[in-house]
């Protein structure tokens, strides 16, 4: 039986692994190559690496580091950060990365998603949507690591991206990220009901029960950062991942 995917997301900045809260206050938590090795030993379903500084600093993906990481990753690996062209995407695939995650360029480079999915197939193209609720309760899409607010709502944008050929949506609730307060279930429900491609819920997971809730409202997969990298209220760095049997028991047979 197919199991709901549980995906650790790792944030990169200047070749180091970092973690923050609500897209801010990032601190260094370790070496990414080592972290990937540990996640590999723990048999994670899939891993997503996001370079949160690449777009803002105008840099390309760190191909050298990604080559090192990919050679250690015997599981599906996604990468996002600084991707703006089909050439970069092809180069990432040649390193052994299966999926590219595109956020800012999905808004700023109009043909990118369509071009990339026609070459590589939709299944390799993940559009990342960062979203936040404003004071009157409406959701907006943000780009550039959550710093730029767009006149776009996540539901319409997700639909458009599906039409353009996106294979999955990585949906992140900015004001839940790193808080452990649970996913933004309204956001997940709205987007997942509007598209037929898988939606990966991200931002806010604090317990295994949160995973279950996200799946109940329509997520096809769940992602988390803190839960798999920190332990205790002082947030000591410890990489963990639940055993397969536990996740199977928790998530199998759950659906909307």
């Amino acid at each position, binding site marked *: *039986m197919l199991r709901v995917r549980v995906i650790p997301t790792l944030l990169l900045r200047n070749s180091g692994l970092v973690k923050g809260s609500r897209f801010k206050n990032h601190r260094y938590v370790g070496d990414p190559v080592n972290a990937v090795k540990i996640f590999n030993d723990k048999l994670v379903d899939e891993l997503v690496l996001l370079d949160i500084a690449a777009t803002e600093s105008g840099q390309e993906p760190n191909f050298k580091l990604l080559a090192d990481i990919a050679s250690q990753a015997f599981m599906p690996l996604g990468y996002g950060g600084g991707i703006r062209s089909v050439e970069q995407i092809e180069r990432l695939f040649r390193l*052994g990365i299966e999926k590219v995650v595109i956020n800012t360029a999905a808004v700023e480079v109009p043909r990118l998603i369509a071009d990339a999915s026609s070459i590589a197939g939709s*299944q390799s193209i993940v559009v990342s949507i960062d979203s936040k609720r404003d004071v009157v309760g409406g959701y907006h899409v943000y780009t550039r690591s959550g710093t730029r607010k767009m006149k776009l709502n996540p539901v319409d944008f997700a639909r458009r991206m599906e039409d353009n050929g996106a294979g999955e949506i990585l949906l992140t609730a900015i004001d839940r990220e790193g808080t452990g307060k649970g996913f933004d279930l309204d956001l997940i429900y709205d987007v997942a009901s509007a598209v037929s491609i898988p939606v990966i819920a991200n931002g806010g997971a604090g317990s295994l029960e949160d995973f279950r809730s996200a799946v109940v409202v329509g997520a096809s997969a769940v992602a988390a950062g803190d839960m798999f990298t920190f332990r205790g209220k002082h947030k000591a760095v410890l990489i963990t991942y639940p055993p397969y049997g536990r996740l199977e028991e928790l998530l199998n047979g759950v659906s909307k």
Partner: protein
Amino acid sequence: MIAIIDYGMGNAPSIANMIRKVGGHCIITPNPQDAMQAEILILPGVGAFDNAVRQLRDKGWLEVILNHVYQSRKLIGICLGMQLLFETSQEGVLPGLGLIKGKVQRFEFDQTKIATLKIPHMGWNTIDFTHRHYLSAGYSEQPRFYFVHSYHAVCDQGADIVAITNYGYPFPAVVEHKNVLGVQFHPEKSHVFGLQFFKNVLEQ
């Protein structure tokens, strides 16, 4: 020596990484001449059926693959590479390699019964062997593999089916006809289960 066909479709580097990890010697090559001495030929693949057939034809691989098989050497198709082993696919109009009898068709669910199954079938799923097989050796728990596909094989000959997986209904996850083997999943992305798969292939 194992040769992985690099025809611009699929993640040859990940396959090579894993084969090397279990001690195999392999090359990735875009040049059919380099693969003529290979004991095992691997046909990976991600993308569309017709495009893959066209690439193989234009780059001179079709003859090399068929010769390899006629000389009783092993061919392994992975994901789209497995689908290419069949005669036809609903995804395209060009003929496949025809090394395994049957066709490839899109997942189709009775929506009244199964409302929530997405296409593609993406993620980890278990496989069940239909009979005792060298590929089933060495697992201490039921093997599971990473799948990403919207189309699946339908074999004409039940004897060619080595293992099945369930997604809405059972479909062939591993097929084999003589020296031609196909797997719908990605062993190269299925950590310990994938390592065991390549180990079993090498030890056979």
